[in-house]
């Protein structure tokens, strides 16, 4: 059987980021996949050791520009754990609010990219248009569109109250209106289903064995979500993870679609139940000892570990990002698929290479 071996990336129109998949096809069927990374590696963990620990918030949130808030949140929770800081309840609720908005904007972005890779241009445009509303909320409440820098050690930097809260509610309503028009299309459209159903199957058992995380895992039938740990205000808000049993790309799409609804609900809840009080506490001293923290990022479990030695500089910072855990899933899903499905399947784990390579 004649073979076709070629590079898919690092620069490739369907990949917004630089990763290479070295593909070997027979006919249009993929028979071998070798993921090649290193095109985006910067060395953030090492650089973090050289920076004062307070500044690392800004470095960490630039691990990934899409879920930057989550990265900042994780790092802050890590240091707060290390230094036993009690974050005020209002800050916790605000953190949930921004986390969930980040999740919405990330999922909307993803649905758009999926539609784009499928050649469904108009859906891409509609998703991104709706996403702009969320970005407006983020910009209004934090001052920036994509890299908000609103989370600091000890709390958050900005408050949401009064007129601002009203505007935010209006914008969220506006988003909900747009989203309610988009979401049935994503779920029901014949062409989207034809392209995603049964593609990139990740069997339930295998998903667990490979240590897959996030929506990819939940689409294979596991109710695993770090938010169940109850960090920030999640313990008080209460929620059930979204689970799908389909194990295919369509199920992963559905998980994300339903998570947008869920996140919106959580955001409303968080904002409605904002406790009164301070939004940050002052940080004194330097981190010492070890701590680890898990946060559910849009792509799955984000794990950070730090060791402090009582100086302004951390001795070690370790970031394990969800995409790193999910790349093995590609090696299960891609072989045997058609070349036309490679973008769909690759996107279905929502790869964030900037995260993975740090």
């Amino acid at each position: 059987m004649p073979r076709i071996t070629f590079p898919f990336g690092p620069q490739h129109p369907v990949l917004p980021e630089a990763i290479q998949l070295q593909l070997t096809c027979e006919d249009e069927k993929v028979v071998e996949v070798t993921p090649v990374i290193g095109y985006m590696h910067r060395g953030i963990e090492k650089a973090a050791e050289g920076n004062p620990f307070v500044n690392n918030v800004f470095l960490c949130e630039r691990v990934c520009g899409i879920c930057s808030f989550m990265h900042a949140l994780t790092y802050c929770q890590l240091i707060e754990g290390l230094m036993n800081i009690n974050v005020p309840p209002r800050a916790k609720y605000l953190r949930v609010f921004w986390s969930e908005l980040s999740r919405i904007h990330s999922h909307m972005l993803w649905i758009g990219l999926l539609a784009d890779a499928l050649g469904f241009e108009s859906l891409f445009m509609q998703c991104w248009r709706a996403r702009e509303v969320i970005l407006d909320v983020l910009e209004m409440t934090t001052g920036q569109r994509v890299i908000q820098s609103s989370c600091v050690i000890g709390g958050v930097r900005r408050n949401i109250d009064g007129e601002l809260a009203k505007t935010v509610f209006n914008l969220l309503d506006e988003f909900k209106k747009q989203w309610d028009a988009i979401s049935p299309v994503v779920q029901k459209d014949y062409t989207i289903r034809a392209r995603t159903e049964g593609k990139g199957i990740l069997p339930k058992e295998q998903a667990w064995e490979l240590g897959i995380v996030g929506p990819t895992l939940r689409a294979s039938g596991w109710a695993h979500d770090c938010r169940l740990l109850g960090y920030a205000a999640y313990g008080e808000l209460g929620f059930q993870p979204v689970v799908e049993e389909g194990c295919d790309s369509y199920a992963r799409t559905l998980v994300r679609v339903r998570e947008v609804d869920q996140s919106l609900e959580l955001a409303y809840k968080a904002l409605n139940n904002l406790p009164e009080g301070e939004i940050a506490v002052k940080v004194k001293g330097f981190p010492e000892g070890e701590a680890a923290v898990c946060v559910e990022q849009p792509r799955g479990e984000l794990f950070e570990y730090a060791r402090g030695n009582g100086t302004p500089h951390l001795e070690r910072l370790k970031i394990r990002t969800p995409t790193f855990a999910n790349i093995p899933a590609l090696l299960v899903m891609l072989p045997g698929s058609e070349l036309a499905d490679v973008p769909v399947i690759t996107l279905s784990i929502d790869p964030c290479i900037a995260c993975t390579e740090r």
Partner: protein
Amino acid sequence: MGLITKSRIKSPWIVHYSCGGCNGCDIEILACLTPLYDVERFGILNMGNPKHADILTVTGPVNHRNYRVLKNLYEQMPDPKVVLAIGACACTGGVFHNCYNVLGGIDKVIPVDVYIPGCAPRPETIIDGVIMALKKLNEKGSKAE
């Protein structure tokens, strides 16, 4: 204004390469295509193939592995062509300036025509940068003729 000049200014096709940034700028470039900003109004298309493109937009700092990719993409573009460094990292290395694997801004590898600062730059800024690049593109084009 000659027909060629006018056409050149009205039809900038873009190829985008994400060097080693954080994605923030990449999604802002993509956002430029979408209804709120709609750069196709200016004839700007994201082609995804260096052989079709006039403008190379680069985000993120170069590192030891991707500088060859960047160079190769630049070489594959037919003349006249311009390069846009989008975001602080692409301009200077930005927040990653002290990372061990980062060489710095992309001007370490290829000539940059327009620097667009910001972390991440807003879509409006990016569009502004592209318009500035067009002037340079036309200068290069006329010089070649």
